[in-house]
């Protein structure tokens, strides 16, 4: 199931509105003012939370009503409209990219990269930071990007070597070496 951009935007803003509610409640709990009348620890979170609810709520309504929110740049005149039109043309994503991958394939790649990243971070207590991230590099290059194995291993090994040299040797930063305790 894919969300339309309009619904996704509205959902994100609605989540921010909920965050605003939580911040306002939290702020109230921390105390809005101190005994001497000065602002308390909760003053700013409460004020920002309320502001966030109002802004996010307005954004949800405007997005769902399909009204394009007015742009401040637009309001500066036609000059800005021209340059905004330029942004639209520049940032338009083609369906097939230069490597012949479709939007659907690229979406899958993104999900795969984020998932692999998550797995790599979970493996750090076992393999250590550098080895875990080095493996991540090899897997992304070979599985996600479908590059050849040998060059991928060489690029990853060189990169990890450079990082080890700079951070662990030169900057003497204690890297998490994990249960295997290599580098």
């Amino acid at each position: 199931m894919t969300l339309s951009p309009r619904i996704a935007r509205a959902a994100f803003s609605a989540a921010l509105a909920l965050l605003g509610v939580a911040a306002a409640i939290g702020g109230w709990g921390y105390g809005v003012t101190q005994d001497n009348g000065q602002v308390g620890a909760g003053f700013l979170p409460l004020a920002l939370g309320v502001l966030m609810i109002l802004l996010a709520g307005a954004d949800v309504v405007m997005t769902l009503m399909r009204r394009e929110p007015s742009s401040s740049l637009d309001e500066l005149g036609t000059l800005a409209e021209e340059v905004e039109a330029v942004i639209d043309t520049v940032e338009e994503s083609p369906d097939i990219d230069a490597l012949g991958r479709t939007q659907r394939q690229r979406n899958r790649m993104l999900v795969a990269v984020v998932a692999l990243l998550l797995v790599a971070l979970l493996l750090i207590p076992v393999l250590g930071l550098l080895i875990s991230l080095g493996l991540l590099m090899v897997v992304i290059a070979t599985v996600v990007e479908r590059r050849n194995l040998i060059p991928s291993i060489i690029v990853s090994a060189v990169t990890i070597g450079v990082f080890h040299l700079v951070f662990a040797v030169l900057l003497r930063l204690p890297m998490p070496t994990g249960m295997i305790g290599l580098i």
Partner: protein
Amino acid sequence: MLENLLLGFQTALTVENVIWCFIGVFLGTVIGLLPGLGSTTGVAVLLPLTFALEPVTALIMLAGIYYGAQYGGTITSVLISTPGEAASVVTTIDGYQMAKRGRAGAALAISAIGSFIAAIISLALLIAVAPPLADVALKFTPVEMFAVMIFGLVIVVTFQGGALIRGALMAVAGLLVATVGISPGTSTERFTFGNVNLLSGIPFVEVMIGIFALGEVFYQIRMGAAEPIKARFKDMVIKRKDITDSMPAILRGSGVGFAFGILPGAGSTLASFMSYGIERRVSKNKANFGKGAIEGVAAPESANNAAANANFVPTLALGIPGGATTAVLLGAFTIFGLQPGPLLFETQPALVWGLLVSFFIGNVLLLILNLPLAPVFAQMLRIPYGYLYPIILLTSLIGAYSVSNNMFSVWLVLIFGILGYLMKELDLPMAPFVLGLVLGPLFEKALVQTSAIGRGDLGVVLQSPIAVGVLLAAVAMIVLPKLIKPGRALLGRMRDRSEETTGV
């Protein structure tokens, strides 16, 4: 002034500082030209590498990355129509058209020359403007600083180029994230959920790395790769006529860039867009805009460099960052135990003037690097993105770890990376979020102090003429654009009517 400049040259011209300046501008050029990496990402990711350096040397290198990236960002804009830097987006229009007509070299050369001239002009203006502004700011009490910060936030919200509400929403989100940790006024723990790592707040270097590095990589994966245009050495020749034709555009771009860059929160992206728009209206060659007009490259490239330097005026003189990258640099100052703001000119003259003079040295180095070597740099684009982005991911995660030697930072980077991707995908502006995050602690401190001065009454702000003036300017920033458009329409209708009645 002369003494200070001499002190600056003494500081900046040491062998060590010149070498690190070179490394900074070189890395900046490379970072600027690689899609998915911008100056903010570059400074944030490489910040941990500078911890072993002297503060002045570290800041010289980090600043070099910043303005070096403005040069590098152009190369990808021209050659593959993919801006390496947000400030180079507008250069893609005419730059890429020039490249398609075999004039990539002329486009790159004029952008290097324009950037250099703009940098020198804006540096002179920066040196002239920042110290007097710092002198004025020294007289500011927390009440005035509170008003100035509101002004900065309003500027970034109104100028960020998207919807006003969404900009304001992001600024509020940034300020809210900054409230995590110990409250400055009462030492109360807020939103830490018992996690000791959150006691000192959400560290913004990690947030920046997440949003700008990981978020950008995720976004680029979804956007896909573009077809590069190969830059040959023989295409690199620029004619004298190109330079003379572009000179007015370069000078106008420098002026526009400095004017926008000096505003806290406005940044170099807006400056480049505005200067392109203005040039498109006033240029003699306006018919060629969009089809490969050299002025369409010269003006925005001059403007973004001028704005990059001008961004240091509010950063150094007021302690309020001009844009996202100067926000990270502001964080670097605090990591090195320095408090940016008006006092910096008095307490750390060697550092401030050394840094300013290093801009001059850095820009000379960049001109030397970019004029003959742009095609060499362009070869970097041959590195397949399939290898490049895993390296960016690694650099970001290891860099984040090295900030605090803590895996918590790495997880934060991933979380904010996903958030940054969503923000890009949903077209939510990042600059207001970043400025809110960086200004948050300073803003709350000023709020608490203002409350203390007014004994709980925040209305004390309205008793300061300076604060009232600044707040009125902030209100004008929001209200005036709304009045101008209907006003223009009304004027147009009145003119039409008067023409009808007079029979013209």
